[in-house]
């Protein structure tokens, strides 16, 4: 699977279209390379959702241009964009409509004429086989959210655009989402995820784009931003716990993912004070 690059050029967008309207995007430019994993951060009302909706032609920019691969989005309808972009809505748990979860997940591939094998794979990846025969409204909202994601993964798109995919999910569910998305990214799929959940962002993304008030205000490596407490607090965010721990201990290499932090902790020699080294010895002695 080859991923698609995304190019957003000086895009402006206002809701309403008349005077005194909300200008949601005030000149946004963004380049995402094929296969890149990008997190889109920022406070509520920053324009993140609006930007993602432009990528799938649900809205048209008032000025500027949006490209997905070599397609100019302005000349496409949403159902055409579906061949390239898989879009998971912010309120994805409200978008299900089929009689069974399996049917709902199969809707996209069927419309696009793609093999049904993706359906089973997506259900399996997100651990939804057990509920596949149930009605979507017989499962709780977080599960419905996973179903919506599975429905988009099953389409096997080259670009995944996800609007707050982990909101409302518990840790285990979030881990399933991360694993599924990273697997796609490893296969070359481009991933763009809007999120407030920095623990999720730390696990998923390599690059963080921060929006505020209709503009991009930061664009840097995730590993870099996570350690910049001031930049995060400017948009109402805090470093994830793993990074807090790493900062407190001054771990080398600036680890961001939980597994990296654990790895870095293994390398630490516990010699700060007698008590902690004794604890460490006891721990290693008893194991």
């Amino acid at each position, binding site marked *: 699977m080859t991923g698609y690059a995304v190019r957003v050029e000086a895009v402006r967008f206002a809701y309403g279209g008349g005077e005194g309207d909300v200008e949601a995007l005030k000149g946004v430019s963004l380049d995402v390379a094929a296969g890149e994993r990008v997190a889109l951060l920022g406070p509520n009302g920053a324009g993140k959702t609006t930007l993602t909706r432009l990528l*799938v032609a*649900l809205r048209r920019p008032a000025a500027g241009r949006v490209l997905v691969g070599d397609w100019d989005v302005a000349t496409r*309808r*949403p*159902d055409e*964009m*579906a*061949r390239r*972009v*898989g*879009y998971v*809505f912010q*309120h*994805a748990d*409200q*978008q*299900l*409509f*089929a009689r069974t979860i399996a049917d709902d997940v199969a*809707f*996209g591939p069927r*419309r*696009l004429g793609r093999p049904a094998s993706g359906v089973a794979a997506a259900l399996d990846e997100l651990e939804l086989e057990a509920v596949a025969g149930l*009605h*979507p*409204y017989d499962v709780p*909202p977080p599960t419905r959210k996973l179903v*919506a994601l599975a*429905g*988009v993964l099953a*389409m096997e798109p080259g670009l995944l655009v996800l609007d707050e995919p982990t909101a409302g999910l518990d840790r285990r569910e979030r881990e399933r989402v991360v694993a599924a998305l990273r697997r796609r990214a490893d296969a070359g799929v481009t991933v763009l995820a809007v999120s407030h959940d920095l623990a999720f962002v730390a696990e998923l993304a390599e690059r963080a784009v921060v929006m505020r008030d209709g503009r991009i205000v930061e664009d840097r490596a995730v590993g870099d931003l996570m350690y910049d407490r001031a930049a995060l607090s400017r948009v109402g965010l805090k470093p994830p716990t793993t990074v807090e721990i790493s900062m407190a201990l001054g771990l080398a290499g600036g680890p961001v993912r939980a597994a990296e932090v654990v790895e870095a902790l293994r390398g630490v020699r516990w010699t700060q004070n007698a008590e902690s080294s004794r604890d460490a010895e006891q721990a290693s002695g008893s194991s």
Partner: protein
Amino acid sequence: MIGYVAGRSILHRAHPYTTLALAGAVLLGAFAMTRPLQVGLLVLGAAGFAALGGGATLRSSAKPALLLALPIWVLLFVLHGLLGPEPRVFFGPVRLSAAGIATALVLGGRVTAIVLAFLTALATTAPHRLVEAMTAGGQPFGRIFLLSSTLTVLPRMRERAALILEAQQCRGLRLGGSPLARLKALGPLALPLVLGALAEVDEQVLALDARGAGDRREGGEGGGGAARRTALDPPRDSTAQRVVRWALLVLVLAAYAWKFRSMRG
């Protein structure tokens, strides 16, 4: 489309109880009016009420009200005009019952006025303001929830329908551009829409319950008495508006007094 329309008209700014009192007066007044002329005045009153809502709201009050009332008018005229008692008068080529026409006018006018007033109240009363007003007024949670969820059910279903259609498009569904094609696409969504709305109400009740908003809960931090929720930003009431509401009540009572007096006399 039916439902709340944001705006700055005098009705939008009025206390929700005032708007509801106006609509209620039209409703009660309708049954006090028994003659075509009286009902004509009532329709005028309802139209004035709707006009107070301003141009944007008229589209979601007057238009659907007329659309709803039109078939009823036709039906009433056919029924009462053709089957009504003698004597008959000529309306062009057809002979219709004069008394039947009067009955049709009264019934049709009532329906029109009531629907128009109800849709105007719906279009100009922000559900959250009504909730605030009722909370400030010490109304029980169950009643507030019932009323506000009823007021918002149509717009919420509309939103959900739009969301599902957009999501389906993003999964490859081609929607024809015509409104009819869109309406057709909505057909199979009726069941998920209702189920979704029910699930949502369920979840809201659970969430509110978890936050201790249920009126079953007794006692509270303050010690003694039922826990009283505080309204965050209750809509402002005024003496003038209170006077208007009392005046409406007196007016309605007077209309009924008049009706019964003339029935006896």
